[in-house]
Each structure stands twice: as structure tokens, then as C-alpha cells.
């Protein structure tokens, strides 16, 4: 079986000191052990197979989101190596790239190009985004006139209009009214089905059981176990004890 993502012996540390000197020493001597850093990920070995849906669960602050960000290339690991096959796309915090003074349409182009799309692709996606987000004539109004629900819908519409080889999802299902939440859940499920490989972080175990082939349990920056969904969820509840 081919692997879509290979992570071997990943370690990632965040510096704790805020000074210029500590920043520079950290930058040039990353391998030295230091007390003034926070270890976010440690000894992570993970292989994600081509075509599988892998769920990541764990407590708040356990390193799940950081793990996704390492796969996406946002954080470069201090130890070990991460490799991915094809383009990755991270769905997280859906309207970070937005600007209040641009119109909806301009924001689609801005956020779309931040996500790495060419102009022609964005033009192609536009009718679909218009239809899904239900923004209507507000599309040519500045974003500051939107309600927060409208912004969230537009964000999800753009972010989910992509077709990457590897899709990384970080808890983006909880926005909008119940109808839209249901709709975006369906949209993401469709995306999951049409995308080769998916890594998803979520606290909703029901959803995870439904869509994931395997689960990974992360705690305090380490992988506790990888396996069948029900086993790993059981292991999650064991963490408390």
C-alpha cells in the first residue's frame, strides 16, 4: 500500500522566551535541549495510507492541530521528517484571509489565491461558491455589511471548493445556523469522499466513527495509539484514569 503522508520521528518545539537573543539562539541551535521551550510534538511516527480517512482525537492542547499544521507545512519540524504526496489543503478558521473592505467577490479571489488557486480556477469556482454560500446580491457588497453567519458560509464555500490530493480538516463544522451546519457537514463529507486522502481533527466522535477508517489518539504531544475507531475512542476515555 502506498503512503500519502509519512511522518518519521517528528519533534516540534515552541520557544518560550520572547527576547531577541533567545530567538536567535533557538533559530541557529534548534537541536540543543533547552528548558525554555515547549515541546508540542514528540516522537511522532505516522503513516497515512493513500485513500484513507484518518481521524485525530485528543484533549484540548494535546497537539492535534499542530500535527495538522506540520503536515500542511505551516510549522517545519525541529526533528524528523514529514513528507506528503501531492498538494495539501488545510481547512481551519475559515475566514482568516478576509478583508472587511473588499466585496464578497474580491474576497473570493483573495482567499482563493491565498489557498493557492489561479485566477481561472477561481472564476470557474465562482458559480458554485455563489450557490453554496447563499450570499446572493450581497456578493458585490463590502464584507463589513455581512452578518457573521454570511461570512462563515462564504469562508466554508471557498475553502471547500478545492480539490487537493490531501485534505486536512480542523474542526470547521460548527458554524452557521443548524440548516447550514447540516449542509456544510454534507459538503465536507462529499469532499472527503471525492478526495483521495483526508486527515480530520474533531471532537465529534459520532462523525469520526461514521467517516474514519482509522483513528489516532494524541496526548501531550505523543501518539498514544493508532487503530480501529471504537478501540481508540475507548482508549481516549481511559486517559482520564
Amino acid at each position, binding site marked *: 500500500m*502506498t*503512503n500519502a503522508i*509519512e511522518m518519521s520521528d517528528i519533534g516540534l*518545539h*515552541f*520557544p518560550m522566551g*520572547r*527576547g*531577541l537573543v*533567545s*530567538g*536567535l539562539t*533557538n*533559530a541557529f541551535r*534548534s537541536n540543543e535541549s533547552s528548558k525554555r521551550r515547549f515541546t508540542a510534538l514528540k516522537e511522532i511516527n505516522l503513516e497515512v495510507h*493513500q*485513500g484513507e480517512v484518518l481521524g485525530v482525537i485528543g484533549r484540548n492542547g494535546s497537539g492535534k492541530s499542530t500535527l495538522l*499544521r506540520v*503536515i*500542511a*507545512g*505551516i*510549522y*517545519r519540524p525541529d526533528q524528523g*521528517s*514529514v*513528507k*506528503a*504526496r*501531492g498538494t*495539501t489543503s*488545510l481547512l*481551519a*478558521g475559515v475566514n*482568516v*484571509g478576509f*478583508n*472587511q*473592505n*473588499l466585496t464578497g467577490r*474580491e474576497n473570493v*479571489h*483573495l482567499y482563493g*489565491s*491565498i*489557498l*493557492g488557486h*489561479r*485566477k481561472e480556477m477561481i472564476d470557474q469556482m465562482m458559480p458554485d461558491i455563489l450557490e453554496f454560500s447563499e450570499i446572493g446580491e450581497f456578493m458585490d457588497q*463590502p464584507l463589513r455589511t455581512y452578518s457573521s453567519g454570511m461570512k462563515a458560509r462564504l469562508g466554508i464555500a471557498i475553502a471547500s471548493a478545492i480539490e487537493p*490530493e490531501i485534505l486536512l480538516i480542523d474542526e470547521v463544522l460548527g458554524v452557521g445556523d443548524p440548516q447550514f451546519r447540516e449542509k456544510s457537514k454534507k459538503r465536507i463529507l462529499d469532499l472527503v469522499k471525492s478526495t*483521495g486522502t483526508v486527515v480530520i481533527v474533531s471532537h465529534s466522535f459520532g462523525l469520526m466513527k461514521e467517516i474514519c477508517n482509522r483513528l489516532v489518539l494524541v496526548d501531550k504531544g505523543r501518539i498514544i495509539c493508532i487503530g480501529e475507531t471504537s478501540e481508540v475512542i475507548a482508549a481516549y476515555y481511559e486517559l482520564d484514569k
Partner: protein
Amino acid sequence: MKDKFPLEEPNPTVPFLKGPHLFLGTIISEWYLIQNMVRRDLKGRYSRASIGFGWIFLEPLLLSAVYYVLFTIIANRPEPNYALYVIIGVIVWGHFGKSLQATITCLSNGGNLIKQVYFPREILAISPVLSQLWISVISLTAVIPVMWYLGVMPSTTIWMLPVALILTSMLALGFGLIFAPLNAFSQDVSHLFRFIIRAGFFLSPVMWTYEMMIARAPDNWVNIIMLNPMVIPLTYARHGLDGTPIEFEVTHLLYCVGVAVLSLLIGMAIFKRLESKAVKHL
């Protein structure tokens, strides 16, 4: 079919010497993204004001009027074209200061976006400089009424004006790129540079001119003053517009161009090298 993509690191470590090459490659391949970022900057800044883009024109005009009145009283009207020199000085120095400050703070201010999406971070550094260049070019139309009033016409020396703006942008981007990762480690850097830009306003020929300096400064001071790489761009911009020729010593000219090119190359290499470390401090 599935094997058409090789296993690759998403954000690989870049060898120091390859930094500039990759940096320039990204600018070309991500040009559409850069355009969108520039539009965001410009619209964000001016679309909510009723005078809107008119402020680009008004700001240097009003600022120069204040400086002109102040300095004609203090210096007793040193040159017939002094008003023109002041306004060009204010615009070009403003271009340098704002571009530099924007580049230095590009990582520390872009934290939200950087942490949610992976895209080449050099986009964040280059786009504010291009926005500022656009603004500065528009601001330069503010010199037209002043030139008309003084009866000054540009001539063949006009080529010096774009050269001046390009050199200024290169210097601002170069130094900005060197210090942007450091500013993510500690924001002391941008506070320090705010002071440097203010002090540089007086240490550069904004309120005074190259000719005044040559006429008054002792010979051994000239070389020290010319260590400031902004002296030549500011003077070029003035002579580009007033149409009179200017000659610099070859060593001074080489020094200025050398600093611009080297700072840019070193800046791109350092930025590419340190940006992924800096991101962890955000």
C-alpha cells in the same frame, strides 16, 4: 495514476545561497496572489474615507506645506526651488520609511493568516512594498502644482526618478527582509526602526539638499554623510523632476547601488532561512 506525485516535504529547508533564487521565483509564480494582497492593502486603507484615494495626493502636499513654511522661516528660503525639493524629499523618504516598516512587521502582523494557511511567506513581505510603491507614484502627482507654480519643467533627466524609486524600494525591502524574522522574535526591532526612520528623516536630504551639504560640510564629512544609502535616491528624484543634471562620485554611486543589491540578496536569503523559525514565535 496515484503515483504521479512524489513524496515531498511540504516546507523544506532552503539552502542559504538558494534563497534569493527561490524568492524571486515565488514572486513570479504567485503574481496573482500578490496583486490581490496589494488590492486588499489599498482598498483597506482608503475605501472608507470620503476623499478616499485623494488622501494619497493630499497627505504629502499638506505635510510639505508645513515643513516648507517652518524651514523657510528657520533657513530663510535657501533656494528658489526649495519647496519642490521638500515635497519630493517628503514623498521619497515616506516611501522608504513606510515600506521598511511594513516589511519589518510583515511576519509579526500576519500571524493569523500564517497560522491557518500555508502559502509562501515572502508574499507578505513583498506586497506591502508594492502597495506603497503604487501609493508613492500617485503621491508624486502632488508635485505637479508646485512645479507649475515655480515654472519648473522636467527634461531628459526624468529617468532618474524611476531609478530613485527602484533603489529606494530595494533598500527598504532588503533591510526589511533582514529584520522581519528578528521582529517576530522580539518586537523591539520594529520600535528601534521607528526611531531610525524618524532620525533618518533629518540625517537624509529631505529638508536639506545634496548641494547644500557639499557647499557647507567639511570634505572629510562628505564621505561619512554619503554612507547613508538614501542620499543618492533622494537627490536623483529631485533632479529627475527639476530637469537639472547631477554628478556623483563613482565610488559613492557604486556604494549606493551595491548596498541596495546586497541588502536585497542577503535579505531574501535570511528571510527564506529564518522565516519558518520565526513563525513559531507568533
